[in-house]
């Protein structure tokens, strides 16, 4: 019984895997929170389905470090993100931007809805009334 309990407790003692090492964290909790939030929005280019906040890749660690350096130097969140985007492109944003090359993607559903609506309205007007 005790062995079983100990075995069970062993599982409880396993924390969630966190890529971020304690030594990477900044002393200022507010800055650290901002850095974590930014890290979650940036894609790791080595392991493309993870954010740099989650990734164990060494490049992700470097980028986390870089984001913290930028924040320490007084960058705003947007400036720190732009710093990375300038080097790696819009692709590193986990959330796509409303940018020129994406207009088709963003606007197509609405265009379709509007166009379809107009066609239906037109047809209804032309249809013989019963």
């Amino acid at each position, binding site marked *: 019984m005790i062995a079983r309990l100990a075995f069970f407790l062993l599982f409880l003692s396993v924390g969630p895997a966190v890529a971020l090492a304690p030594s990477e964290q900044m002393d200022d909790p507010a800055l650290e929170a901002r850095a974590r939030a930014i890290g979650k929005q940036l894609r790791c*280019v080595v392991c493309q389905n993870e954010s740099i906040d989650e990734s164990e890749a060494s*490049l992700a660690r*470097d980028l986390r470090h*870089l984001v913290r350096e930028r924040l320490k130097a007084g960058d705003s969140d947007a400036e720190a993100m732009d710093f990375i985007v300038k*080097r790696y*492109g819009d692709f590193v944003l986990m959330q796509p931007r409303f940018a020129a090359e994406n207009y088709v993607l963003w606007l*197509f559903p609405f265009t379709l809805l509007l166009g379809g609506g107009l066609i239906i309205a037109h047809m209804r007007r032309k249809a013989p009334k019963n």
Partner: protein
Amino acid sequence: MKYFSKLMPFLPIIIFGVVVGIFLRHYSIGRDPSALPSMLLDKPAPRFALKQLDADKTFSEKDFLGRVTVVNFFASWCSPCHIEHPYLYGIDRGALVLGIAYKDSAQNIGGYLKDMGNPYRLVLMDESGLVGIDWGLSGVPETFVVDKGGTVRYRYVGSLTAERVQQEINPLIAALNK
């Protein structure tokens, strides 16, 4: 108008076709979805100041102005770099072949070049990897061609092959030297 109403039933199919065409062209055909576009193409090479391997000299991007330069990021710990190593000798020497050792020690790089041979005119050390990030590196090896004015004209991610060097890099070097 008569034609239009005859066309009507096919309209959804036509629209669908057009959309598929647009998407294929922009997002799929001939593009490896995991291959990343380079932000540097046709932009000035990033600034850097790096120490030369085994020498007390520092070089910056300005030192390469006026020469077509092939910048090859590599490391002794990277096996794709070992694979591409022999093909680096095939690069047209009309360009200066610059090796930047990414996240590696002078000792390891020295040993690597001694064992394998040194295809570089000059080797600079990026021990922290920060210069690599400025170049948008996602790993090693990566190869860039920079023109005489310091503008990046070409980027290749991964191991170079003999074909890649002969068919893409050398013709570009020749064109940039004209």
